[in-house]
């Protein structure tokens, strides 16, 4: 079974984001780039599934070919077999639907039967691409999955629906699964695997290679202006004995924060 994983490369979680001079993006120099953490859960689940069922794990990215550094470290060094990066100038201004079209075309061209993605990327937090990929492929999709199993033709996926309730979804492959924290614990890349990943194959493709053109990914949404959230005011320390502090806290929560 060919198992696909959609992977985005994003700034490391403790990056201090700065807005670029023209206000239309972020300052990219000095950023440490990593595989978006939810995608790492997707990769781990794909590799575990491959270990149980056989087959091959293929990574798919729509982005600059330089992402191969992170794809090797965070994917090929932890068990994925190869990667496909679609790098095309037209991708720069596209939107989630454009990205989904590219990923779906890549997945279709490889004949995958099961696809994992993170539930969202940690940079834009759009939570749109996975559902769009599924729709474009004509596959079902289960989101925010915390437990998954498959026998190679059917699957069972558990998702948290809030308030402690869990939903168990069963069906048959193919399917797109989006990974929530808790699905698994991603393994560490082992040193020999890091050395081996150096020689694994990364295909860099253009839109044309997937029979797509720039027109197919013309954005419906354009990002024009970025701003940082307002700075958080300093914390306040309540003084006095416990009773006074609790009373004051309740008053503040009610009157100032207006949350109770």
């Amino acid at each position, binding site marked *: 079974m060919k198992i696909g994983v959609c992977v985005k490369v994003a700034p490391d979680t403790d990056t201090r984001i700065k807005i670029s001079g023209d206000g239309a993006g972020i300052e990219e120099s000095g950023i440490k780039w990593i595989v978006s953490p939810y995608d790492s859960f997707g990769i781990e689940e794909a590799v575990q599934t491959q270990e149980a069922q056989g087959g091959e794990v293929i990574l798919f990215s729509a982005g600059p070919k330089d992402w191969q*550094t992170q794809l*090797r*470290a965070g994917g090929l*060094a932890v068990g994925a077999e190869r990667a496909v990066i679609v790098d095309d100038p037209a991708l720069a201004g596209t939107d989630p639907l454009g990205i989904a079209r590219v990923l779906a075309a890549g997945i279709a061209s490889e004949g995958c039967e099961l696809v994992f993605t993170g539930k969202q990327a940690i940079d834009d937090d759009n939570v749109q691409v996975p559902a769009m990929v599924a729709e474009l492929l004509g596959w079902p999709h289960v989101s925010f999955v915390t437990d998954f199993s498959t026998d190679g033709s059917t699957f069972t996926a558990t998702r948290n629906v809030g308030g402690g309730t869990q939903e168990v979804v069963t069906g048959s492959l193919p399917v797109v699964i989006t990974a929530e924290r808790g699905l698994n614990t991603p393994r*560490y*890349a*082992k*040193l*020999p*695997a*890091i*050395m081996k990943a*150096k020689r694994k194959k990364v295909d860099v493709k253009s839109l044309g290679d997937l029979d797509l053109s720039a027109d197919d990914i013309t954005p419906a949404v354009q990002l024009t202006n970025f701003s940082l959230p307002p700075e958080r005011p300093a914390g306040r320390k309540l003084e006095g004995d416990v009773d006074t502090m609790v009373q004051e806290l309740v008053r503040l929560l009610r009157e100032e924060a207006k949350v109770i």
Partner: protein
Amino acid sequence: MQFPPWTEEHAQLRDTVKQYAINELAPHRFDWDKAGEYPAREVFKQLADLGCLGIRFDPEYGGLGLDWWSTVAFIEGLSHCRNAGLMMSILVDTDMATPIISEIGTDEQKREFLAPTITGEKIAALGVTEPGAGSDVANIRTTAKRDGDDYVINGQKTYITNGAIADYITLAVRTGGEGHGGISLVLFPTDTPGFSVGRKLDKLGTRSVDSCEIHFDNCRIPRRNLLGHENAGFLYIMQNFQGERLVAGIMAYTGMEIAVADAIKYGQERQAFGRPLASFQVWKHKFAEHLAAIEAAKALTFQAVQKIESGQDPTKLVSMVKLHCGDLAQRVTYDCLQIHGGYGFIEEYDIARQYRDVRLLTIGGGASEVMKEIIWKWHSLGG
């Protein structure tokens, strides 16, 4: 040319070890330091599984056959465990007791000792120092007398890191006459009858691992456990010291980098007189000075690594690294504690432990004064 010659793989190696150290080791640093021990078997198994225990060793025996820069990357990553005692225990195994086996051991010795060390099944210690001979290695008194196909060993060693947990010891013994011409190195299995672990020493720092006295009472080991040539041990020990001291230098600068980053962060958060401590010029200048000095220490260390990599004799440079990094760590850690004020004196922040731990850096593996002797000797010889 890029210097140091990091590749993407070096960076990835460091990152994966760093993640492991942060997630699996660092959370236990206070507990292990207090307990005076750590679950060594488990940790060595995990490290072996990650592929960390044979970085430069021959793939024939399970190693990865990588370069010294990979060792640098490994130690930089491992330093995020924030526990110098734990690091010392691991690095004694990977870089102090075993490289000499890899360099001069027989195939049989490598299969019996090196291979199971790389898989984490055996833990190694290095036994040189004795109650009566530390800096003066040529003066050791533990004897190994030939008896048929065996050596019979008598004597004692002290301060031996991993002494209570090791499966074998790369051991310096006297096989010949007085002085440095009568010393040999042997591989000593700790299940040999007559071997015993004495006092576990109550140390100022590096408390997560034991350093102890060990005793040899008519211990019989086969003569095939002799490393290299008989009575050539002093040379091997000096050769082995170079890697050990370089590793100490790498540990020192990585430790300083972490301590300074912590101290600056603390200084930015802690308010006094209506402003963050770190906004006082005296602290800005102090840390600017330390950042510059650490960068210089690192550059010196990298130069020594390059020398070792290129196969040249690194003794003078390595001695400079050990001297410079060890001494600098004292001053840097002193200031890092100072900015913490009273909190720095309490075992709640890392700095109290780091302050205790770095004290060893000018003593263990060759005191600063001994480094100066070596540097001067090489310098006056025009080396």
